[in-house]
């Protein structure tokens, strides 16, 4: 079995606000092997992006890692100096973002922005670096790369810009690529192209990918294993097949039921999870999902469930009290059939 090269352990991230410190990500733990893809899924505001930004240590002035460690190739990223971190950013870990329209600096050319990165981490002459940048642009399927390299970002469409971002992110052959909602802002046909591209590049380079999305379809397409996050915590973790076949957590089930299906009866109302993600300032006691959960019991209101492996599959972890009871009685959950 291959060794994990990224191990995030009990990560807790907090932000300073006017109303005091708020914990935005709590007890997040996951591991990643070389070439593996992990998907992080959840509603807006559940801490997906914060988790990924803390791996890059790009939490801004108000954010900080309070507890936990991030082991990356034998180094604890939470303990590195800013200068050491800069060596890693863009080089060993790189990132692409949700908004291709605003992720590139409008006043510098594509080439300028790519060369900046290449010069920072790779020892290349000016002309070599330029040729390499053009090669990278071609690799991500950008037509007329020789001309486009001298264009400004506003001349490119959203899909093209995301390709540029990917080319840039992969320039230094990172061992980890973090993709924060890489296709959310793109229209569907472009989404598919970008996902195809990422899959192809993953095969070629054996880069591990951390893909963040609220779109289960994207996750199903890309990920080997999945973290489902809710209100800053991991509520379920499993490999992608297990998760889609046998989701255990009521939240995961709810997410899957709220995917519209073409074959569904058009008269049937699409399921949605009632309520919204709780405010970070007023996190509910007990299970954070209890006020939206149809199965909530007394215990759920008062005690927080731990993230535990289920008996027959130790790689499948769920944060739910129901599982305790299900082990005693036969599952009476009719919903899982709807999804399957």
């Amino acid at each position, binding site marked *: 079995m291959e060794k994990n090269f990224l191990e995030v352990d009990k990560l807790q991230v907090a932000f300073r606000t006017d109303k005091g410190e708020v914990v935005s990500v709590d007890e997040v733990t996951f591991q990643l092997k070389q070439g593996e893809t992990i998907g992080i899924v959840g509603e807006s505001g559940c801490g997906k992006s914060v988790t990924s930004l803390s791996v890059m240590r790009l939490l801004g002035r108000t954010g900080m890692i309070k507890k936990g460690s991030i082991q990356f190739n034998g180094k604890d990223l939470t303990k590195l100096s800013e200068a050491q971190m*800069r060596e890693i*950013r863009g080089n060993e870990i790189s990132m692409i973002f949700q908004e291709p329209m605003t*992720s590139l*600096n409008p006043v510098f050319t594509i080439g300028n922005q790519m060369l900046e990165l290449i010069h920072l981490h790779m020892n290349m002459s000016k002309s070599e670096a330029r040729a390499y940048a053009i090669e990278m642009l071609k690799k991500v399927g950008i037509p007329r790369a020789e001309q486009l390299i001298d264009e*400004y970002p506003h001349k490119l469409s959203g899909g093209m810009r995301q390709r540029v*971002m990917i080319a840039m992110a992969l320039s230094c052959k990172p061992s980890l690529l973090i993709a924060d909602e890489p296709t959310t802002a793109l229209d569907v046909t472009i989404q598919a192209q970008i996902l195809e591209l990422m899959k192809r590049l993953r095969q070629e380079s054996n880069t591990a990918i951390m893909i963040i999305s609220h779109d289960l379809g994207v996750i199903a397409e890309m990920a080997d294993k999945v973290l489902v996050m809710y209100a800053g915590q991991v509520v379920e973790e499993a490999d992608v097949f297990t998760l889609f076949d046998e989701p255990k957590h009521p939240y995961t089930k709810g997410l899957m039921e709220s995917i519209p299906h073409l074959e569904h009866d058009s008269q049937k109302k699409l399921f949605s999870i009632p309520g919204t993600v709780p405010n970070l300032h007023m996190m509910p006691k007990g299970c954070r999902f209890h006020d939206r959960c149809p199965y909530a019991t007394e215990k759920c209101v008062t005690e927080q469930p731990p993230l535990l492996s289920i008996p027959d599959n130790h790689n499948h972890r769920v944060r739910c009290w129901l599982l305790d009871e299900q082990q005693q009685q036969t599952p009476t959950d009719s919903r899982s059939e709807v999804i399957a």
Partner: protein
Amino acid sequence: MFPYIMRRLLIAIPVLFGVTVFSFFIVNLAPGNPVEMFISPDATQADIELKKEALGLNDPIYVQYLRWMQNLLQGDFGYSFSTYAPVGEMVASRVLPTLLLMGTALLIAYIVAIPIGVLSATRQYSWLDYLTTGFSFMGISIPNFFLGLGLIYIFSVQLNLLPTGGMNTLGGDGSFGDTLKHLLLPAFVLATGIAGSMVRYVRSSMLEILGQDYLRTARSKGLREFLVVNKHAFRNALIPIITVIGMDIPLLIGGAVVTEQIFQWPGLGQLTIQSIGSRDYPTLMAINFIAAITVLLSNLLADILYSVADPRIKYN
């Protein structure tokens, strides 16, 4: 770009014409006339009428204007009503001192204000930020005449370090060092006001940029914060800053009327005050005309600089 500039210059001609019409009539609206301003109190009414007739002041205003325009088109600004010197020469001799004074003031102001504004924005709500916004507010608020008089009192009257006014010591050697000494106080006074507003513009313009996504991209490349701020962010914050600089350039010519007067700086500003006092229409018109040209040209320059700073702005 070239056709655009040509078009802008052509449009400037009717604008300039309009400016001269307006200013000519407004200048003439002021009570009193040049003759009353310089003739001695015991001159008879007949003397005054004679003088007015000789200067052409009895003609209808539009006739006076057309006469002025006719001369202007031949490159002639006319003669001063109060000194009888050719206006062209009078104004020309004042341009250089004003350029020197305002150029120095603007340079000091920008060199100080731009880095402070950037720093203040990157450390928003720190004590440094409060300090700079506080000082910049003071810089804007203190009237130049007050600050000027205060500094003259301290540095010239009390400490006897710097001259109270003028550009060169009378009977002195006229050396550069001497001029520099005279330049120090008025340039500082002018710079405080300009720097005060510049700090605020730079700060707010940077604050708007600092939250942008592409800065996160720049950081995610492993770029050091210094470059993220001063290359990626500052370049984007330039547009509003260029606007302010474009508005400041006319000051180079328009001068600082009050400050020049207080420090007896022999520039255009002082000439303006003197000409208003003596209702010296030809001189006033010449100053107006030059100021209007400067405003139009610096607007054009700012627009050209926009397209240099931001590739998304293109003129056809």
